[in-house]
């Protein structure tokens, strides 16, 4: 029972600030302080929401974007994690890569859209590439940093046991670097949602990013809001679920909001 209450309490606390934002929103729109074109009133948003639900377009946009986000994120993680391990084990490789990597890290993916189109076409390829570019570096750099901060005394211990690289990675590096890695993955996941807008600027005809861009062009601010709210809450929801799952899976890790 107590457990339950605290759960409820926690949820309430987390929702307090958003609730205040909601209140502010209601005050602003209902009193007409702000041009309804910029912040549409709740009625309008609700209407648009219902009609988008009924005609199935919202669900479609969500599903398509989800696919892109997950594909892009897992692709990025699938490259970043092994690459970080390689860079850790072979400092020479990291010397060779670092110039290009840090160049890319500082370059706006949006500026590279023409090149992405050239390489990956205008299909899913370039959209995924853009998402990968957006979320690769937090995963890579945090993992690498996590690995580099692992206590070298533990590694020495592993050396005396003649652990293979695989065993060393699995039993020492991975659990020790995990908190940093998770932070990286979490940040990366956020950026993959954020990259939707940029990705769906490239020849998309569906997806939440497209929905927002299209609605903006057509001055449908209500739809823009629905798009933003969908992206934000989906991201929030998934973040929450994955954190819960991870807490279960790795109970010894402390922390994170």
């Amino acid at each position: 029972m107590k457990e339950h209450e605290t759960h409820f309490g926690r949820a309430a606390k987390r929702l307090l600030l958003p609730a205040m934002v909601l209140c502010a929103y209601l005050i602003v729109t209902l009193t007409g302080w702000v041009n309804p074109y910029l912040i549409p009133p709740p009625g309008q948003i609700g209407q648009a929401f219902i009609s988008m639900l009924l005609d199935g377009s919202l669900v479609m946009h969500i599903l398509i974007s989800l696919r892109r986000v997950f594909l892009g994120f897992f692709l990025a993680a699938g490259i970043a994690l092994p690459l970080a391990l390689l860079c850790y084990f072979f400092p020479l490789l990291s010397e060779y890569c670092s110039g290009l990597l840090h160049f890319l890290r500082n370059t706006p993916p949006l500026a590279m859209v023409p090149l992405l189109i050239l390489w990956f076409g205008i299909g899913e390829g370039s959209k995924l590439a853009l998402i990968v570019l957006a979320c690769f570096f937090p995963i890579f750099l945090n993992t690498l940093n996590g690995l580099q901060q692992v206590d070298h005394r533990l590694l020495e211990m592993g050396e005396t046991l003649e652990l293979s690289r695989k065993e060393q990675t699995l039993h020492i590096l991975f659990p020790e670097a995990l908190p940093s890695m998770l932070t990286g993955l979490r940040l990366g996941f956020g950026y993959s949602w954020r990259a939707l807008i940029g990705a769906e600027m490239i020849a998309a005809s569906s997806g939440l990013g497209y929905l927002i861009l299209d609605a903006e062009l057509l001055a449908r601010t209500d739809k823009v809001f629905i798009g933003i709210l969908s992206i934000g809450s989906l991201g929030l929801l998934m973040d929450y679920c994955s954190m819960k799952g991870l807490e279960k899976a790795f109970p010894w890790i402390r922390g994170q909001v």
Partner: protein
Amino acid sequence: GGSKEDSLKTIDVSYVKSPFNLPLILMKEKGMLEEAFADEGVKVAYHEITSGAKQAEAMAADSLDIGGVMNTTSVLLARSAGNDVRIIAGFSRPVDVFAIVAMDPGITSIADLKGKKVGGPKGTVLHQLLAAALDAKGYGMNDVDLLEMGLPQASTAMLSGQIDAALLAGSLLIQAQKSGAHVITTAKGYVTPKLVIAARGKFLDEHPEAVERYLEVHRSAMAWMEANLDEALEIGAREQGISVEDAAKLYHWTQYITALTEEDVKTMEDDVTFMVENGMLREAVDPRSCISDTAFE
């Protein structure tokens, strides 16, 4: 502009270079507006906002008073969404600046586009051009595969062979031609793109004299342009970063105006119909409701 409307301190004007908006370029380059407002102590702030939608947003946020160049589509869309943007004058009818372009020499006519991939921005005059052109040849929008993308992306995608045709305008059009693409058709005969000068409704109501002064300055910029064409083209070319020949080309493709005509209003009504048909507008708006009297001579 600021939110305090009682005494005008600053006037916020958007500055849009492309497609080759020479009078506005001259007005800014020569500081004509600043000069005209100097005696009243009003400062002029230029903001470079290219997109019509963003200009409308900025006006709704009271951050922009006058849209130096907007397309009528954006104005109509803003209007239908309850954003009080009003046309205060015409700017140009750049019929030849908008075109459908292809790389594949096998595509020479609208008919060849059937079943092909075309890239371009939806909901703009270019989209309308494609629809009108298809319609004129007895096809519909369903006969082509229109991929939504910005102009630079469309140009890249076409030149790299990812799409068969692109909807392009202005410098991108010239560059595409130089890169080996050819024009299938321009907007001439299908639609009339109309660029206008617009003002935030409240600003127009509270400072009609400022709007009037702005329009005066615009007219004198036009006059100066016509009188000193060579110099004007040079300034325009420099500002756009293109060659003077290209500038001249763009100049001749564009028909600069100061006032709208009844004909323009009629084509705007056609535009509204088109937008309603394509689901861009929920219900028809009367173009006249967003045109101030100043726009007609």
